[in-house]
């Protein structure tokens, strides 16, 4: 069934979009990532103009994250306090990131920088996570008790706050910094930032994996809602029909994903996320290294 999208001005298969939304929704519910880093290239591939794809994707992530976070609220696996601290940092970071982005745009080659950013970050994060989770799984098999979080310099910082749901008593400075850094990267790379936020919360802040997913979704809702409004009012690139098709699949997928996530062990979740991040990284790296079949590309003026 073909549907004509009013803003994107292309005709697409409705069932294809429902399916894509569903798959990305499942990942979103399982791992607490928005899925923008997977969905946006897929939308490019089926012929949606890039500007519309990026803006509409933000709107779809609002829906699937909201659906996912409600499921996590029922299980009490959302750390509202930590989420708020991260969000404050994230919004500051996003504003900074937009400034950095505009500066780089004036210098040219911003596309390349974004891609390199992706490859480096995805590669490092995915690689580290993969090794760590592999070790954790081996240790569980050998019967070794998993190491409790270490006491390091982070615990010596002032402005301590109790994060009951995460079982942490740490300074607000590290989460704020994490929020700012993720916000900057998210704005430059044009995604919600879940795939950077989730590992940062696990490894830098020492939060339990189960709480991380819900908390990440919680803060993604606000960041992407903000982005959606920005795109809708300045670029007029949010396609509501495309968004509805994607989010119907997305919200259902998110519910299923959350249920799968609950049944899985923390290490398994982490290793799957790591593998997914590495696959995306590999695909982007290949794009940079292999000769493309078409050397030329067309862009409409002003995009």
């Amino acid at each position: 069934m073909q549907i004509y999208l009013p803003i994107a001005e292309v005709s697409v298969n409705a069932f294809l979009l429902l399916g894509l939304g569903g798959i990305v929704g499942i990942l979103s519910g399982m791992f607490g990532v928005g899925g923008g880093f997977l969905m946006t290239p897929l939308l490019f591939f089926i012929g949606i103009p890039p500007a519309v794809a990026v803006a509409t994707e933000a709107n779809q992530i609002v829906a699937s994250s909201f659906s996912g976070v409600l499921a996590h609220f029922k299980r009490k696996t959302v750390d509202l306090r930590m989420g708020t601290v991260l969000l404050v940092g994230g919004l500051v970071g996003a504003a900074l990131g937009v400034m950095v982005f505009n500066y780089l745009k004036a210098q040219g080659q911003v596309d390349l920088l974004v891609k390199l950013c992706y490859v480096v970050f995805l590669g490092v994060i995915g690689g580290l996570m993969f090794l760590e989770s592999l070790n954790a799984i081996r240790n569980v098999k050998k019967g070794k008790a998993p190491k409790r979080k270490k006491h390091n310099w982070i615990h010596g910082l002032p402005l301590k706050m109790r994060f009951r749901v995460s079982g942490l008593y740490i300074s607000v400075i590290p989460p704020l910094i994490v929020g700012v850094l993720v916000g900057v990267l998210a704005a430059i790379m044009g995604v919600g930032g879940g795939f950077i936020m989730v590992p940062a919360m696990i490894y830098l802040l020492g939060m339990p994996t189960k709480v991380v997913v819900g908390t990440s979704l919680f803060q993604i809702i606000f960041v992407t809602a903000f982005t959606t409004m920005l795109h809708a009012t300045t670029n007029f690139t949010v396609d509501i029909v495309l968004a509805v098709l994607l989010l119907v699949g997305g919200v259902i997928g998110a519910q299923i994903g959350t249920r799968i996530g609950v049944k899985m062990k923390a290490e398994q979740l982490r290793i799957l996320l790591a593998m997914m991040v590495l696959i995306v990284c590999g695909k982007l790296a290949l794009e940079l290294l292999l000769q493309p079949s078409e050397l030329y590309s067309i862009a409409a003026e002003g995009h």
Partner: protein
Amino acid sequence: MRRILLAAALCLAALPAASEEVVLGLSSDTVSINTNFDGSEILVFGAIKRDAPFPAEPPMHVIVTVSGPSEPVTVRRKEKKFGIWVNTDAVEIDSAPSFYAVSTSTLLGFALSDTEDVRHRVSIPRAIRSVGAPANIVNSETFTQALIRIKSRSNLYQLNEGTVSVDEQTLFRTSIALPAALTEGDYKTRIFLTRGGAVVSQYETSIYVRKVGMERWLFTLSREQSFLYGLLSLAIAIFAGWGASAVFSLLRR
């Protein structure tokens, strides 16, 4: 003296040809884009009105062009630098139609001479206007060729040679397929009658491509009430998220 007479005779002989005129019909002069729009086909047909019997030689040919609204585009080229493929050179093309189709009753080069092509901008490369590339780019035509290649792949540029059928040197018809990825606007439709490569008559009309119904409403809302439109998108997102969650918890019970 004889030479002048001959020239006068030639002029007189050419006169009836000049008074050939196109009478045109379109299967429809509007294309409505609704939600299930999946491309469309337009039938262009017509007849040639003459004041005098037509000369048999040279034979008459018909060319039909349909062109969508033009816009400036940037074409970029990738090059390998430091081991990775990056966009290096870019050429701005001043105006390229979003859609362009040329249908002819014979080979285009046969029906139209090069000078006439330049004058009327009929062939695809001539319909694209590129004033000048930056000085550092050597062969800027390759960029225009790339634009045509990419657009042709998605049927947005079409060269349909021999698809106009002409009956009795008087009636002609052709059908032009409009792809699903169609933008709004007035699609200029031109019909040329040619003899021996020269245009003897020309006719111009427009096909109006418009969004209708929900497509129209959403598009207008997004441009004129963008804040409201943004809030509407968010409201739908939140509602759908909540709805799925509610349905799933009902199912669990």
